[in-house]
């Protein structure tokens, strides 16, 4: 049984039908990527899973439980953490305070300390800058803060929304290496990306999303070699 099962969800923004019966599943320990163009519904999918948007139809099952009956602020308590699009760091709080906010859903002091140490081990740069206001950091460092903050909640599933957005290639490499490392530590990952090539090269499986529907799904390797995917998302003619 998959860890996270999304079944036939329909999400709307007012009258705009953003997700039209989307289904996907993620197994424990996998890296699954969701690729697609602008406006395909990638971010909407993540926001629906994390409870910020409620679908009108469909079901989301997590670890055998119906996830839709929990309000957004309780989803994180179940073990699903999100790194939001555009990073969403708290600009006027320090790096440490941002990380501490990440552990808002945790009570165990030792656990919080362990997570803090883990964040600083994953991102040594953050340790150097921990007293700095997060808003004054570079884009790459802000992405590190956002990821470190999400990990502070000891998640089983990490939802990443375009972690490579606006970053220099060398930083993209670093972020993707770190995603793999986080995954090796046992965290299941759902990765939304426009940078399809990078995403498919670290993922186990992938879904191709187009105007609110899954149009293709396969092993990441196979998607990478699929002619339509190559043409549409990888820039290969």
């Amino acid at each position, binding site marked *: 049984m998959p860890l996270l099962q999304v079944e036939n969800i329909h999400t709307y923004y007012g009258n705009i039908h953003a997700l039209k019966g989307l289904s996907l599943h993620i197994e424990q320990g996998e890296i699954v990527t969701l690729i697609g163009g602008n406006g395909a519904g990638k971010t909407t999918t993540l926001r629906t899973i*994390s*409870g*910020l948007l409620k679908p009108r139809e469909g079901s989301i099952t997590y670890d055998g439980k119906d996830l839709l009956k929990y*309000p*957004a*602020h*309780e*989803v*994180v*308590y179940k073990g699903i*953490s*999100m790194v*939001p699009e555009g990073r*969403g*760091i*708290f*600009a*006027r*709080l*320090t790096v440490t*305070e941002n990380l*501490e*906010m*990440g552990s*808002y*859903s945790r009570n165990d002091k030792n656990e919080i300390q362990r997570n803090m140490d883990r964040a600083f081990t994953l991102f040594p740069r953050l*340790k*150097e*800058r*921990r*007293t*700095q*206001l997060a*808003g*004054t950091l570079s884009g790459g460092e802000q992405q590190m803060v956002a990821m470190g*903050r999400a990990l502070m*909640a000891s998640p089983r599933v990490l939802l990443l929304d375009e972690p490579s957005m606006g970053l220099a290639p060398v930083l993209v490499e670093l972020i993707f290496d770190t995603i793999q490392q986080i995954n090796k530590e046992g965290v299941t990952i759902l990765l939304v990306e426009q940078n399809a090539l990078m995403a498919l090269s670290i993922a186990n499986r992938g879904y191709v999303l187009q105007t609110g529907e899954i149009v293709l799904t396969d092993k990441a390797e196979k998607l990478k070699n699929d002619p339509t995917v190559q043409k549409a998302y990888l820039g290969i003619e």
Partner: protein
Amino acid sequence: MKKENFLLSATKTGLVGGAIAIFLCLIGMVEIFNKRDVIQGIVTLGQFVWLATAVGAGYTASQQTSHLLNGKKPAQNLTAGALAGFFSAALTAFLVWLGSQTDLRAIFINASPALYELLTFGKGLAGLPQLLIIGIISGIVGATFTLLPKAVQRPLLHALMMLIFMALFSGIFRVVMINQGNKWETLAKSIFSQTGLTQLGGWIFILGTIAISVFWSNRGEAVKASMARMPSKGKLSLRILVFLIIAVIALGLPQVSGPFIAQVIVIISLYILMGLGLNITLGFAGLLDLGFVAFFAVGAYTVGLLTSYGPFGLQHISFWVAVPIAVLVSMAFGAFLGLPVLGVRGDYLAIATLGFGEIIRLLAGSDFLAGYFGGPQGVIGIQKPCLGVLEPFIKLDTPRICDGIEIGQGAADHFLAGPGGIYYLAIISALLIAFVAWRLRESRLGRAWMAIREDEDVAEALGVNLIQTKLLAYILGAAFAGLGGAIFSVLIGSIFASSMQLLVSINVVALLVVGGMGSIPGVIVGAIALIGLPELLREVSEFRYLIYGTVLIVMMLAKPEGLWPSQATKRELHHETSAQGGD
């Protein structure tokens, strides 16, 4: 590009200075300030204001000249200053001439004969040459100032500021000193005149300030260095000493200063309470509330209705019992406001809360509810609290004994009857609430508020219950303001819906902005600057909002983070990007 001719630039500056002078004349500032002396028999505040424009024009013109000519050239600088001073005065002279030809009062009420008399030294148009000469001299004085070395400029500037400060507050100092008995009275009368400083007083403050300023610029660094070298134990005891001195002053102040100053401090404290409340909703949680006075009104009316012996008093319970009830009722209103506006953000929230504040005020003052709240007549006969006993939670009948004195006989006699006693109540409440606000800020709840302020969605995704957290911000903010209202009602002894103006809410927002958003010491500094100073300067109160507006604009340009900003805002606005920490 060819640089502008310095004479042309000086002329322009002079005309700007003159325009300001005319403006100050026509709004009546020069004339009204003329009733106050800076130094008796030498210069009045009105003259001073006018001179300041000419001196300022000379100063600015000289600065520009140095800039245009790439350096200080005394002859040109002084010429520019004189020219600017001349044109500055010339515009005023033109105003006087125009006034002698036509009656300007039809449009400008303040263009009165008294103003002309003042500007022409009582000589009619024959006084105008004298005015121009004074303008030129002022311009030269301003220009000379720029030529002086920094070491001379600073003490002079300090002395000038001290002089203005002392002159403005001379009335208060005088009264306070005269209250202290004979010796002080003689001293007060020799330094302060009825309307300003005496000549002796003026010299004392000018020379004294210069002496201190010179000493400090020569020895200040050494003093600071020796303080820094002090062992930590010494620093601690120094801090305790300073704290003790402040505490002693605070405790003894109302006895020394008399009721007026005590009342001003009470009002400052009430604004501090409201400021701390709004600091939670706006400063911490980022929820703009333009109707904050509503909670103040709820607190005031609750205590009023529960303790009043007037026609609308529901109960005659003890103040000490009424206060917690008032705070609870305010909290309920906080939730009542919070619930419908939970989903409203930003500008819309400001408008919604603005409406709420007005609704409360209009309801309280309406004829419809006049049977409960007294309508425009308000609730009167609110009993002053007694300190001695916590009276029982029952209807107390008159005559009532309070601290051993029968109320209604010598009502002003018992301790908490006047501003001098309420002072302690207000100060202690403000300190207590400041402490609570500080602890809240460092708490889990405080962090959640700040996360909401920064990004609601992310905060929610991290596990912050938005509904609960936002409601708590409204409720706690309301509680603080309600406590302020409760104290206000016993300070004044009566409450009227007309005291709950929108302006109060605006003042609270402004004091947060001036003090520094989200900063607790900032609230205190902001309340003193925006509420305390205008209260003390009642004589110039006609121009209160002119000065107020100018100060706000200047603040936003020069010091947008506020007078005492929180660490975060300070760093944000000064783009501190250097890496630090790593200890």
